[in-house]
């Protein structure tokens, strides 16, 4: 068995973590009437999300929201602020609130005109505190508990990379040139 590199793989979300995070997000949706809510890490990867049915393109949304947050933190730095812990984006139909969770994650809530902004702000704060506890426990687990990538899986992944990331047209062209 290989060990996950602590510098790279310092977050392994277990089934128990996921259940706690999901329960938290579901309760937030139910209490606020928001449309979507998700937890994303600051590198743009989505840890968990819940929605009331419809689902936008979440992968791109995660990357863009993390980038927006990063950009805002640079503005804070220039203004000698520690950080802007809450972001609010308002559209005609939808609004987005982004709250920091501990130091590594973001809670994002997307809601329409039916939901009440004040209530969402209050419940978001409460939720970030619970999520922060869950995620910090996950992150603080010893590296040995994070072992899990077997030699067989590593080989299978490498083979898949060779298969999927191939460029047959380019190979054909090279052969023609030869």
């Amino acid at each position, binding site marked *: 068995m290989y060990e996950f590199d602590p510098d*790279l*793989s310092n977050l*392994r979300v277990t089934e128990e973590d996921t259940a706690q995070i999901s329960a938290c997000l579901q309760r937030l949706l139910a209490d606020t009437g928001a449309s979507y809510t998700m937890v994303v890490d*600051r590198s743009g990867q989505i*840890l968990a999300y819940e929605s009331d049915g419809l689902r936008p393109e979440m992968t791109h949304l995660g990357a863009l929201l993390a980038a927006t947050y990063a950009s805002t933190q*640079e503005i804070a730095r220039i203004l000698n602020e520690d950080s802007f812990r809450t972001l609010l984006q308002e559209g005609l139909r939808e609004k987005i609130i982004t709250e920091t969770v501990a130091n590594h994650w973001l809670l994002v809530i997307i809601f329409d005109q039916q939901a009440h902004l004040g209530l969402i702000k209050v419940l978001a704060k409460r939720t970030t505190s619970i999520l922060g506890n869950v995620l910090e426990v996950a992150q603080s687990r010893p590296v040995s508990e994070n072992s899990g*990538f077997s030699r067989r899986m590593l080989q299978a992944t490498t083979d898949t990379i060779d298969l*999927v990331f191939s460029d047959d047209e380019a190979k054909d062209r090279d052969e023609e040139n030869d």
Partner: protein
Amino acid sequence: MALINVAAKEIHGKIVYYGPGLSGKTTNLQYIHSRIPSTTKGDLLSIATETERTLFFDFLPLDLGKVHGFTIRFHLYTVPGQVLYERTRVAVLNGADGVVFVADAQRDRLADNLQSLRELAQNLTTQGKRFLDYPIVMQYNKMDMPDALPTPVLDRYLNTIKAPRFEAVAPEGKGVFETLRAVSKLVVNKL
């Protein structure tokens, strides 16, 4: 940092294409997007200026499918290469699991390559990574240009860490997938 979601059986890795302005980072992603099967890729997202220069980043999600029950996903990003956007590069680099350094092989771009590489090393170090152990692949792009420096010269100046390196002509796809395969394997080897 790679994210391993045991409940969802997903592994996510983040790969960043770094390098000086106009070295061909976006072209790499455009070529990958144009060639890879639609089942494997998401939309290529670009936040660019009106003149098509990268303003914030390009983003391309790739899905390798299931391996031993786990879905393996890589998210490819580029940084804006222009010197002005140094803080934006720091933001995009945050949490990266691997880096492709796209160098412009033309003689008059050597100083720009060196400056960008030094900045990358500094940014990784600031983020608590050891530059010498970090998964990095070098790509010498624009090798078809008449004033491209020979590979041994580029090696001497840019690849003192002896990272895997590939010659490339990104618009034609030469070296693009070789680079992607190499950096992806470095990332999974760190898992």
